[in-house]
């Protein structure tokens, strides 16, 4: 008897097909990874399997769980006990007012039906297994992202459900935490079935098992994960795999650029009265791409703000060897939608910049072609374009100012892998052409490795 058997499951909004019919079967001990970009309909599939799609959407097809054909409403009685879902950004699904252990305890009592004493014992034991024995009393806001994720997974598994659906379980985590979460999912699912939804090729590779590749609601390819990853058939799958920084071609060797731009001596940076990083010494040269890495909260963004003069240094000196005016020291933001006004069209914003600095309009068109930006895009405002397009628009604006220094604060972390690859490549190319120094912040060591000439490591 298979745990999950799905026949021609499809999702519609009115008459529009959001997810083309998909069939799949999972036996005990099997793992399935659904790979696709943001907006490809992966989460819809998970919700359709769970049976918690919004009422405005309609599903078709048959779902058989544990040998029993059940409709969406009947599936609710399986929730938690036989099929469980780990939603995206799980810290949002934990109770913000309750301690971690208390939540887990309640799950054992209410969902699994344990006695109070048993539930308490099991909760304490599970937390200790996760290495969280000292954090049982902490609320979500006191836990780090990785810890909250482990608590959420423990809660999702507490009901003893043999089938676990994990929707982007590693989104926004850095590499070491990502690996931990994947390990935990794998060990939890040995006795049942695991469906993982992700856009991260590295996660798919670790989980193994079978794989389905989805693009705009269509199933492109399915088979063994190792087969697909080593010999992808569909061009989209190829692009997705190539976009994983591990598979990027190595960078062109750095040309020797020895004109110093900024010299930093014994710099201490911090927010408020708290020093984040101490005794930094380095020199940036023109046309150089320098990576900045370090754990979250070690002051990567603060370093940028301090170099740009937005933020006061706590100690030490920053020596600028260039007389370039302030507007040639620019920054790219992690979340471009937060860095651009949504009140007016992009064309108006561009026009504002051109007027303020009397930029030659003839330069715009070639630069836009190089960045792959379409003229028509400018008529929309920042909410009407995708994150990748907006980030490229930000680059366009910054590059028109002929920057001598560009601080790029995780410029690709919110973009899907294919766009991330393009954007980071463009950034490096354009910077080198214009002799602009780039500081690239990222939590992805592979990206830093493939894009940067050298690396500055910050320690908290």
């Amino acid at each position, binding site marked *: 008897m298979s745990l999950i058997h799905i026949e021609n499951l499809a999702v519609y909004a009115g008459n529009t097909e959001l997810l083309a019919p998909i069939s799949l079967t999972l036996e005990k001990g099997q793992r399935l990874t659904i790979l696709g970009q943001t907006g490809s309909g992966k989460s819809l599939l998970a919700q359709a399997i769970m049976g918690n799609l919004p009422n405005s959407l309609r599903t078709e097809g048959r779902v058989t769980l544990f040998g029993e054909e059940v409709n969406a409403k009947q599936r609710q009685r399986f929730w938690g006990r036989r099929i469980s879902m780990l939603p995206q950004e799980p810290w949002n699904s934990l109770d913000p007012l309750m301690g971690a252990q208390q939540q887990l305890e309640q799950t054992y009592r209410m969902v699994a039906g344990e006695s109070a004493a048993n539930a308490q014992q099991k909760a304490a034991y599970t937390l200790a297994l996760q290495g969280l024995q000292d954090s049982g009393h902490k609320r979500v806001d006191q836990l780090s992202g990785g810890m909250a994720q482990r608590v959420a997974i423990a809660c999702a598994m507490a009901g003893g459900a043999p089938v676990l659906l994990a929707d982007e379980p590693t989104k926004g985590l850095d590499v070491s935490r990502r690996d931990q979460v994947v390990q935990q999912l794998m060990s939890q699912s040995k006795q049942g079935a695991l469906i993982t939804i992700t856009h991260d090729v590295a996660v798919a590779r670790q989980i193994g098992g079978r794989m389905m590749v989805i693009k705009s609601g269509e199933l492109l390819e399915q088979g063994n994960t190792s087969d697909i990853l080593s010999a992808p058939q569909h061009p989209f799958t190829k692009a997705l795999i190539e976009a994983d920084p591990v598979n990027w071609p190595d960078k062109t060797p750095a040309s020797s650029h020895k004109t110093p731009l900024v010299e930093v001596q014994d710099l201490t940076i911090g927010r408020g009265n708290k020093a984040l990083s101490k005794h930094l010494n380095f020199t940036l040269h023109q046309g150089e791409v320098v990576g900045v890495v370090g754990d979250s909260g070690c002051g990567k963004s603060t370093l940028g703000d301090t170099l740009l003069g937005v933020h006061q240094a706590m100690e030490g000196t920053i020596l600028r060897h260039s007389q370039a005016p302030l507007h040639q*020291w620019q920054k790219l933001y992690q979340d471009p939608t937060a860095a651009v*006004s949504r009140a007016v069209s992009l064309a108006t914003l561009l026009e504002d910049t051109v007027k303020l600095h009397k930029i030659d309009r003839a330069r715009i068109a070639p630069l836009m072609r190089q960045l792959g930006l379409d003229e028509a895009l400018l008529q929309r405002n920042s909410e009407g374009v995708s994150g990748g397009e907006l980030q490229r628009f930000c680059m366009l604006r910054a590059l028109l100012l002929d920057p001598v220094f560009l601080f790029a604060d995780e410029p690709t972390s919110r973009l899907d892998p294919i766009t991330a690859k393009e954007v980071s490549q463009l950034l490096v190319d354009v910077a080198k052409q214009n002799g602009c120094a780039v500081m690239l912040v990222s939590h992805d060591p592979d990206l830093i490795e493939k894009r940067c000439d050298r690396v500055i490591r910050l320690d908290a």
Partner: protein
Amino acid sequence: MISSLSRTQKTGAGLLLLLVAYAIFGPMLQNGDATAQDLNHILTPPNSEFWLGTDHFGRNMWIRLADALQLSLMMAALCVLTSAVIGVTAGVLAATGGRWLDRGLDALVTMILALPGLVLVLIFAAIVPGSFWMLYVAISLIQWIEYFRVSRAITQRLTRSPEVQSSKLMGFGQWYIFRRHYWPAIAPQLFTIAAFGAANAILMMASLGFVYVGIQPPLAELGLMIVEHFPYYSDAPWLLAQPLLLLALVVLACHLMGRGRTQ
């Protein structure tokens, strides 16, 4: 613009438009004026000659109500405009200017808030009784605070946001940042505050008229009319009902306008 309004808001706007039309064009449809007395025709019930009847001095109620409504709407419009301009300017300056400016304005606002609003207006109104302009100053003095607090909170959040930092790095000045970042964030909130503020201004003026420190007779004012007609409630109940109903309708129109944006 109109299509972005909710059904509730459209109802409110329609009602308000009707009331404005009555206030402006109403008096033209009947002869006479608001203060002309005719003691031969006191407490006339509504008829074909006097559409809404006459009061205890035989004054034409159709014209008096229109006059009173005109006064109330004018007061509301002036107060909303003044307090919005002052409040938003002060709010943005407090959030972007120096620390001392922010503290000073905050102290001032706290002091004003420590007094009940209506008491403050009463004090002002008692200084120069019956002055429309004194009432206007007093009501605006209370109402700018809401605009101030909302604009200050929004601007404070934005000053530290990436979008403002980015614009500053590109060399744009404060006025540009206000136009492109602060104002677009503040403006949608203003509409709601303005709608409720207008209703409050009208109610405040009527309250003052009711306790005889607002607009003085023989001018027509809704609150004043209510207290003037009160002694005749058993002889002419329709007379007392008219200003009450009109007041309720104006306030309702304003409140309906303020609804819907948040959903």
